[in-house]
């Protein structure tokens, strides 16, 4: 049984996983580069826990016990005793590679090293370590406290022991693990990609308008949101960056090709909800 979980990066994902772990009675070392980020993360966790108490989802006396399980750290070697370290720093392959090099040197050799990357190759990240067998991907979904799925991503060299332990960790956190191979987009993003790419092609070919396509996908397909609403929600720039990354990693697989409409929109400053204009207009809502 493992007791100690290390988390690197106290952003939305890192903080969310720390909270999940603490609620599952696991001791967490939460690392980030400075105290300010960590303090902010703890404040957000406190607010979340209070919300849970108000909703009756958490007994009052669990509040401080849960918080005490999370220790904040600003020095990586402090995570040395952890049985599993989950990284959730920014989605940049250079940053991640550099971090794993440090983690490799500063942790015990039996620890599982996991990355929460949604679109980068686990095999590339693992290549920076002396023991790539213990590197694995744990792709959590947003919002991390309610989304039950976790893709457990096997890198080229990840061994079965690491896989089994990672699956056990995911279950400890109350999530549903599925095992996938390290391929561009893993499973969920890759298979849902045609929902967006075909919708964009239909729009590009003038088969139907964006509103119509969303309406059809919702009313006949039974989806709760249409592809264009979803793209506006996630940000057109993020969507473009993600599809470009998948396309590059696959060396130009035609099914993963990004659509020029996305690029034109980004270049025109139509980034979706955050810029008040994307496929739809959100100006009135501001």
């Amino acid at each position, binding site marked *: 049984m493992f007791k100690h979980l290390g988390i690197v990066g106290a952003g939305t994902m890192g903080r969310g996983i720390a909270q999940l772990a603490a609620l599952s009675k696991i001791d967490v070392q939460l690392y980030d580069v400075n105290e300010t980020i960590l303090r902010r993360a703890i404040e957000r966790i406190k607010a979340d826990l209070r919300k849970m108490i108000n909703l009756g989802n958490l007994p009052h006396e669990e509040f401080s016990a849960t918080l005490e399980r999370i220790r904040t750290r600003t020095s990586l070697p402090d995570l040395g005793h952890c049985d599993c370290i989950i990284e959730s720093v920014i989605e940049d392959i250079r940053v991640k590679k550099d971090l794993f090099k440090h983690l490799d040197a500063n942790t015990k050799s039996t620890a599982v090293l996991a990355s929460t990357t949604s679109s980068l190759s686990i095999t590339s990240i693992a290549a920076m370590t002396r023991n790539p067998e213990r590197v694995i991907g744990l792709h959590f979904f947003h919002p991390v406290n309610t989304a039950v799925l976790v893709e457990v991503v096997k890198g080229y060299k990840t061994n079965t022991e690491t896989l089994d332990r990672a699956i056990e960790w995911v279950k400890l956190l109350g999530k549903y693990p599925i095992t*996938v*191979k390290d391929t561009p987009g893993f499973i969920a993003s*890759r298979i*849902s990609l045609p929902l967006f790419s075909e919708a964009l092609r239909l729009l590009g070919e003038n088969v139907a308008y964006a509103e119509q396509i969303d309406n059809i996908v919702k009313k*006949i397909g039974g*989806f709760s949101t249409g592809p264009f609403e979803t793209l506006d929600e996630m940000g057109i720039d993020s969507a473009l960056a993600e599809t470009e990354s998948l396309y590059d990693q696959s060396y130009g697989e035609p099914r993963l090709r990004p659509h020029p409409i996305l690029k034109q929109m980004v270049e025109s400053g139509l980034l979706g909800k955050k810029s008040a204009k994307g496929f739809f207009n959100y100006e009135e809502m501001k």
Partner: protein
Amino acid sequence: MKKNKKKPEKNTKTTAKVTEASSKSTRKEVPRTPSLLTKKHDLQKVEVPRSQESYKSDKALVYLVGEAPMVEQYAELCIAHGYDVCVSWNEPLTKKQNTLSPGIIISSTVPENISVAIELTNIDVLTKKKNLEKLAKALPETAPILSSSITITATEQSAWIAGKHRLVGIAALPTFIDKPLVEVAPTIYTPMETLEVVSRFFLTLGKEIEIVQDRVGMVLPRILCQVINEAAFAITEDIAAPDDIDKALTLGMHFPLGPIEWAEQIGLDQVYAVLKALHTDLQEERYRIAPILKQMALTGVWWKQSSTH
């Protein structure tokens, strides 16, 4: 014969429903096909053509022909909404399979007093052609012919028949008929009159329509079949187990159904027919069919939910 005599306005049940919803059918999107751009019509005057008196009923008669599951689903829907229904299948059915509601007439000869005809064949295009030729000969000039147009465009179908103005494409796949919306694709010959009758017909069935361009796969069948194809590629490449794929999409991406289960519900032969048509029509590598999907479609095998455990 009293063939040409119009039915008295006695039964106004279906007509009334239509009028109430007709304001909705004035869409801001103008369908961009030549025959639709030329003239405008008074929508209030349009109604589903009535059956003629020679037929012993005061209801409008719908004739359905095509693949059995879709014909059955449409037949039940039409009879439930106050139409007389007459059906015919591409393949003869055994008595056991035939569980139609009483009142639905089975007849391979097309009656001459039809109000609306619906052709529901996606897989066998030659049979579809024969069905449409038969319908075009038997139907009056005023009766619209709705034809599933996801594996071959409605405009290409209209080349087979005389009286092209009657033909309108629809996206018909098993399970789609339960939904509150129908994709409708006018051909380059479809005039506004026909389109409005079609729109009214669907309104009487309690459905909205979305008018889209006449292309292979239309909107949802194209998107959905490509999602299923991608899932089949992932299985072929052994990226994840079939059950895990469905879990990933429903739990991770909020899909109402996983692609494997969805394919099973629609029918793999249907999915394969749509993908094959997309690949033939668009001639692009991205529409290449996953080998395992093709093999399983041709042999009638597919994963049932949880069969892999």
